[in-house]
């Protein structure tokens, strides 16, 4: 009888632990799109969440990785495909395109002008604030390999790490909210 109770107690303890782990005050976001508007949305949500003391972990993958490139940095030793991708993909936040109404760059310039007029911080400022608030950026290593991107060409960001899908899955499984942008 006592053994039975003890077993049940241990089972419950395990379950509670699992529940606690699965509901951290944390937001995990997949940032997949390399569109200017979508990355702005991702960063506003991240900064807002961080202001609410929610831990934020961003998983940058595929086209979004290009947004992390620093326009002032160039790296050597890329293979042919890497160089091609490097040339074709936007080099940093300043070169991102709008998902709609891009109009050869006119749309993007217009949005940036409107943001300034309405006192919305620029994307570059948002990255800076996110870094100060401890927002973590994890970059998908596989995407980097496919596109021949190197860690050295990314912006200086305090919490930037290169990782794999397991890191995202582990982060997402213990977060209260997850988003895919």
């Amino acid at each position, binding site marked *: 009888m006592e053994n039975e109770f003890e077993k049940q107690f241990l089972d419950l303890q395990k379950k509670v632990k699992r529940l606690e782990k699965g509901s951290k005050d944390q937001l995990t976001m997949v940032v997949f799109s390399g569109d200017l508007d979508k990355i702005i949305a991702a960063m*506003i949500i991240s900064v*807002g969440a961080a*202001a*609410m003391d929610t831990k934020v972990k961003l998983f940058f993958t595929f086209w979004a990785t290009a947004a992390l490139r620093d326009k002032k940095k160039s790296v050597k030793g890329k293979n042919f495909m890497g160089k091609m991708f490097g040339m074709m993909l936007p080099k940093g936040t300043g070169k991102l395109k709008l998902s709609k109404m891009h109009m050869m760059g006119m749309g993007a310039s217009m949005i940036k002008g409107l943001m300034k007029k*309405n*006192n919305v911080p620029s994307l570059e400022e948002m990255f800076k604030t996110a870094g100060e608030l401890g927002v973590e950026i994890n970059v998908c290593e596989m995407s980097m390999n496919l596109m021949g991107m190197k860690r050295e060409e990314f912006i200086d960001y305090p919490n930037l790490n290169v990782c794999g899908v397991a890191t995202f899955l582990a982060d997402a499984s213990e977060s209260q909210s997850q988003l895919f942008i």
Partner: protein
Amino acid sequence: MTQEEVKALNVNLIVDARGTACPGPLLAVKKAIGDIESGEIMEVLSSDEGTKHDIPRWCDKMEHEFIGILEEDSYTRLFLKKA
């Protein structure tokens, strides 16, 4: 709390976030909350419409007490008490 009571509050810190857009006011409040003690009152000035909803929700989450809103012509005054 009535409007008169809110008006008569002894405010410890005024945070002027007028002119900034979302999430500017929220960031300003988060930054300034460290400058007051528990039980002290903060007044936030904002010209951003969304702030009226955002600051009460932020207070809920952070367990500060949201006291009330006073509308002025071109901006809003929001009052909260630090937990």
